[in-house]
């Protein structure tokens, strides 16, 4: 889609569809009522693991830490055969080349946050430079943050143009646009930001940086999935979804899968179109997989703490 620009006439983002808070929260809770058992549970757990963007985004990140995380990404739990790898490893731009090398040949993607993550409070030039650096270091995917301040000021064109510029700087890398929904305040605004991001060229829309509470929630993700569905029907273009932050238990992750399955359907049920941004989720999923296979819970000490 690089260089082709938006595909349809741009809508007026100030009149993005309205969201009823009570209704969307009620609908989201309904997905948690599905009972996931037996082979459905096992397949779901494997799918969840395979959708994880294993993440380390800390000031104290080092090459050593990132290399260990990459090994974990490729070999989540070798004690049990048939366990898939995660989808990607998500790091800061300075760690991209290390991750790229560590993951070479594994098929696991390297995702890099960029654009003055997590606040996004920098000039456009710096943000673009940040993105270009990440891509040049070998990032397959770029996770950008939108300018929430400008968004709250009603400067939707600014936000739109910035996303479009970042998309261009990404080249072949897939662009995930982080809305930081915990700073947006209402579901109406989550929907509006989703629409802006998709029309501006996002390949994925993503809830959160993980640095702000609340991070991903089911209702927020539902609003974004519905935006993706409406965009798909309008343009024919599929957009990926990545809830990030706050999803640390398998049960919750399975509820998210139920939601994707029932809102967007089968085509989105793979790691090309759906990701979990999480660090501690992987071990809980592994623990549940082992539990399902052996009938016993192992202690956390049996799962590598990366």
């Amino acid at each position, binding site marked *: 889609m690089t260089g082709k620009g938006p595909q349809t006439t741009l809508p007026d983002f100030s009149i993005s569809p309205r969201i*009823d808070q009570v209704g969307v929260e009620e609908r989201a809770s309904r997905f948690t009522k599905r009972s996931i058992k037996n082979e*459905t549970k096992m397949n779901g757990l494997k799918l969840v693991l395979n959708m994880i963007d294993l993440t380390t985004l800390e000031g104290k990140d080092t090459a050593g830490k990132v290399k260990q995380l990459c090994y974990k990404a490729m070999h989540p739990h070798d004690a049990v055969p048939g366990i898939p790898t995660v989808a990607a490893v998500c790091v800061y731009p300075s760690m991209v080349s290390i991750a790229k090398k560590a993951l070479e040949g594994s098929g696991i993607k390297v995702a890099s946050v960029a654009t003055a993550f997590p606040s996004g409070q920098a000039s456009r030039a710096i943000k673009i430079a940040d993105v270009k650096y990440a891509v040049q270091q070998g990032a397959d995917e770029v996770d950008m943050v939108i300018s929430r301040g400008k968004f709250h000021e009603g400067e939707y064109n600014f936000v739109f143009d910035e996303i479009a510029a970042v998309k261009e700087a990404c080249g072949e890398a897939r662009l995930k646009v982080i809305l930081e929904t915990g700073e947006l305040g209402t579901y109406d605004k989550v929907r509006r930001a989703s629409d802006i991001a998709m029309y501006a060229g996002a390949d994925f829309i993503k809830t959160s940086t993980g640095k702000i509470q609340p991070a991903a929630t089911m209702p927020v993700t539902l609003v974004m999935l519905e935006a993706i569905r409406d965009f798909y029907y309008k343009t024919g*273009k599929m957009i990926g979804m990545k809830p990030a932050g706050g999803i640390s238990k398998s049960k919750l992750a399975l509820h998210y899968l139920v939601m994707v399955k029932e809102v967007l*359907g089968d085509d989105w049920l793979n790691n090309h179109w759906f990701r979990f941004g999480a660090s501690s989720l992987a071990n809980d999923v592994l623990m549940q997989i082992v539990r399902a296979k052996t009938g016993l819970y192992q202690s956390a000490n049996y799962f590598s703490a990366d």
Partner: protein
Amino acid sequence: MATKKKSNTLKLKFDTAWPYAPAPESRSAAQIKDRYELFINGEWQAPLSKKYFGTINPATEEKLSEVAMANAADVDKAVKAARNAYEKTWRKISAKERAKYIFRIARIIQEKARELAIIETLDGGKPIRESRDFDVPTAANHFFYYAGWADKLEYAFLNKKAEPLGVAGQIIPWNFPLLMAAWKIAPALATGNTVVLKPAETTPLTALKLAEIIQEADLPPGVVNILTGAGETGAAIVNHPDINKIAFTGSTDVGKIIQRAVAGTNKRVTLELGGKAANIIFEDAPLDQAVEGVINGIFFNQGHVCCAGSRLYVQESVAKQVIRKLKDRMESLIVGDPLDKNTDIGAINSKQQLATINKYLQIGRSEGAEMYESACKLPNKGFWCRPTIFTNVAQSNRIAQEEIFGPVLSILTFRTDDEVIEKANNSPYGLSAGVWTDKGSKIFNMTKRMRAGVIWANTFNKFDPTSPFGGYKESGFGREGGLHGLLPYVELKNI
């Protein structure tokens, strides 16, 4: 992977990847006896009629149990027991004592919630998710709520003395068997009346379980009597000379017969009858939530809901979008084994009701409306109907005017507020209605002008014991629930 397709051929797929494994609730957690007698004067008594009839599981057509068929003599026996209990104990004991008994019933319902939910689902065909999360807890809540009123009637009717009427004859339908029993019994007991209640012919089991609960709660004998039977049993109750009040929930046709029967007697009557609720979506509505509300409005309990939102009015500018969203949502509805925790839509309650629904599907098609049903597979045995919508429906179509009482939605379009008000009110019924819009002032304008007893804004099918429920026009009269629900059971005296 192709990511771009022509948008007019786009379709989301919901059927292949990651299907849900069966998750059935355990049937063995419910005790159903092979045969039930009549519950009269606090004990189980064989019917004078000497007759019994079977009750089946509509999802499998297997027989669950057989229950006694009460005749006029049985009804007379029950009324005498109720009268005796009324005169000797129930009207005399303190209001606080009455409350204690009602609280006790509520708590035992909660204790036996799982068993009651399973039996409700087995006998009626509704999904276990609904009987577990809605029917049973709401029934308990009604008893809790009215237990609270029992000793506070002087605050409900200020400066007046609220006296009980005497013996209440109560006839309830098959769509929410336990819940309707609770709606009827709780306010009657709280106000000091005694009860003769008849559950519907196809769904007697939870009412009989409730009789066991009432026994366990140690209510004085005769305060609540439960008689199973058919239409004749109901007629005997309605015509019994020593009954002071009739409370009926059911079809408008039977409601009319009851009204004729009690004309000229001094029986009080409340009727909660049919409906053909208008659910109205304006172009500025939160569409995805509105669609969910429409789905709940018409497919909740297989559409066997008197306040179901069975007439959908969509503003023309968003009609196409809303219909596509509805169709997508219908594909994710799971139809099948009502005991499975993932089932959204269970079995149609009876063969007879299925025939009625099928008759209307035929009428709809022959009237020229476009029918769409979800693609789900149906089980081989039992009574089933796919979730269905009709588009291109006209106000003059029978499927837009008559109550179908099944999972069938008629969709009509409109242009202006005045037009939709006129169309929505253009019905012999007036039980409930729904409005979907982001604009608060429009909600007030619409709700003020719509002739219906219950109007929901940006939601649908919400029930609470504190909220009065009842209809305008041929949807009946009298209110159940809330403070208003006490009124039909009391005589107010100025002292």
